[in-house]
């Protein structure tokens, strides 16, 4: 997936194919809306206003962008390594659990160190959870798709177990933990909104991931392992180690997403802390073509859709599930983007690269 430096990237087919696929998605979506007898123009306008219309809406969009961005940063590392990690959701839950434990039960630290500790622990927990699946792959050759998929549910129920039987105070009726210490709460960036410090952290992480993937030996090794394992081994790269590292980093960033949700927004652990952010991020990474910069834009876009959808529900009474449908259409149809892209290529040279990915 990495672009060679000496080869000029032709952006025309990429942009055209994305536009075509987007058109197809919104066409199908419009058919659905049309048959549900909603006013198309009004729905789209409300969606836009709800996502970017007011400062408050933009803040909400950014807040929803944050976990998607974290998860997609993690996923892109694993995907580039050729590991189909679809366990970001579960890794997010582990991160959230770890952040809660640190946030609630560690006391007496100054704010900066407390937050730093929470970040490190949630990164390590999410990463370790993901690295288990990586280990099962390297040691036993267990299909990582299945193990990471199922690890989502394991993580969800284990988190719920800790929440229900250990973190939940006896007096509470609903499963939720104690609120985190004030020192662990991510500070609000802008008065009057909920813009928490997780968003700049996410952007900084995107920059770090970009540097690691494009400028370091580790990033290069990950790309090589992803495109051809035997060539990588022949070139002296320790393939299993790279797989483990990439899975650890992948889960770690997903864990940070959980940390952001707990310390930034809810300030305590609740049962359903993530509305499938980990799965939505898969769409984000695909649309972003496994690039960190693209991931920022795409997660902003998806965050906007989710926020707009909420607004759509409150103003027009359209069920929030409509947004899930739209996101799902994105996941499915963005798979077609490489195929459409080939139609726009002047020469079929880049077909070689595509074949290498499979």
């Amino acid at each position, binding site marked *: 997936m990495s672009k060679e430096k000496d080869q000029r990237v032709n952006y025309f087919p990429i942009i055209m194919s994305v536009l075509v696929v987007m058109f197809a998605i919104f066409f199908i979506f419009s058919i659905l809306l049309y048959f549900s007898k909603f006013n198309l123009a009004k729905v789209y306008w409300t969606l836009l206003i709800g996502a970017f219309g007011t400062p408050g809406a933009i803040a909400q969009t950014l807040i929803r962008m944050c976990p998607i961005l974290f998860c997609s940063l993690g996923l892109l590392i694993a995907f580039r390594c050729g590991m189909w990690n679809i366990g970001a959701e579960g890794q997010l839950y582990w991160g959230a659990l770890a952040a809660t434990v640190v946030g609630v039960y560690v006391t007496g630290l100054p704010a900066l160190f407390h937050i730093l500790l929470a970040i490190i622990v949630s990164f390590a927990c999410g990463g370790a959870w993901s690295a288990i699946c990586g280990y*099962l792959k390297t040691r036993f050759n*267990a299909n990582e*798709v299945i*193990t990471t998929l199922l690890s989502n*549910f394991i993580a969800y129920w284990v988190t719920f177990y800790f929440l*229900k039987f250990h973190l939940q105070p006896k007096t509470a009726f609903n499963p939720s933990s104690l609120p985190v210490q004030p020192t662990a709460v991510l500070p609000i960036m802008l008065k009057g909104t909920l813009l928490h410090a997780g968003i700049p952290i996410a952007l900084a992480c995107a920059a770090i991931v970009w540097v690691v993937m494009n400028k370091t030996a580790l990033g290069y090794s990950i790309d090589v392992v992803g495109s051809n394992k035997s060539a990588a081994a022949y070139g002296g790269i320790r393939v299993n180690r790279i797989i483990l590292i990439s899975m650890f980093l992948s889960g770690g960033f997903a864990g940070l997403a959980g940390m952001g949700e707990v310390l930034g927004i809810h300030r305590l652990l609740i049962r359903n802390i993530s509305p499938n952010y980990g799965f939505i991020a898969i769409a984000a990474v695909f649309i972003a073509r496994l690039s960190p910069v693209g991931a920022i834009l795409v997660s902003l876009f998806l965050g906007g859709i989710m926020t707009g959808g909420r607004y759509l529900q409150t103003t027009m009474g359209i069920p929030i599930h409509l947004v899930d449908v739209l996101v799902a259409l994105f996941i499915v149809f963005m798979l077609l983007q490489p195929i459409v892209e080939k139609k726009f290529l002047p020469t079929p040279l880049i077909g070689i690269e595509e074949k290498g990915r499979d």
Partner: protein
Amino acid sequence: MEFYSAVVTIATAAVMSSIAVLLPALGEGVSERSGVLNIGTEGYMIMGSLAAYIWYAATGNMWMGFVLGTLVGMSLSLAHAVFCITLKCNQVICGIGIWLLGLGLSGYLFRLVGLATITEKLPVTSIPLLKDIPFFGQVLFQHNIFVYIGFFLVFIFYIVIYKTPWGLLNRGAGDSPFSTDMVGHNVFLIRYVSTLICGAMSGLGGAYLTIGILTRFSEGMTAGRGFIAICVVIFGGWNPVKIMIGAFFFSLIDSLQLYVQVWSIIPYPLLIMMPYLLTVIVMAAISKKMGNMPRKLAEPYLRGGAS
């Protein structure tokens, strides 16, 4: 005596609910054998149950509800087939997308339609003579008709997979699509048919869930049964009979949780987690030698490629 009746109740409930996992798992097994991984089973199921529910609540015709659920599941799996077999997209991502699509679409349509009638349960059909066997008669032979159909389907699937030429082709498409193609069989067609079988069985399983067990529809009510089905397939080593045993075993765990909650031996979230954990362990154990696992699982077949 109280213990005995509790055991009978749990086992009966497990047999009844195992069908909702068994049907999709049988379909998933066939499609995985042909090399197509249907992660979206959960999506097929919930759409199938919604379709069956709406039809049944609107017209009162139970059997058409089952047919419609099956057809809806099939049409979703057709989408999966077009994307993954013809267009050679990534099966994992497509499956996740179809799962979320089914989840969102079912919730959306349910809210729009807004029917809230509780449907009538399937009547219990006891099998004469057999039902009088102590314990087993009560657990196995006093159920609604779909339980028997489910067990009969296990038999059919076993025969088709192991005793007919098509079963071999199905296996060939998943193990070595290139050689299957070389001998002159249409790999794409085999995979299409297998995927459609998976969709149909999942839709049927979803319909059974609404009409047979829960008698209502609620958002996200399949509650991971589609994923449990994937677990069961791996757990059962792609063999219909073992899949049946696995489905019963996992449903037993599921029905135990109500009692365990009362007895408080194991915390119930950990019990619900068990099937997933066991499957991961099984997966790790069988992967080195591959065993029964289809060799080209989740790999699109490129004609003329070195696949």
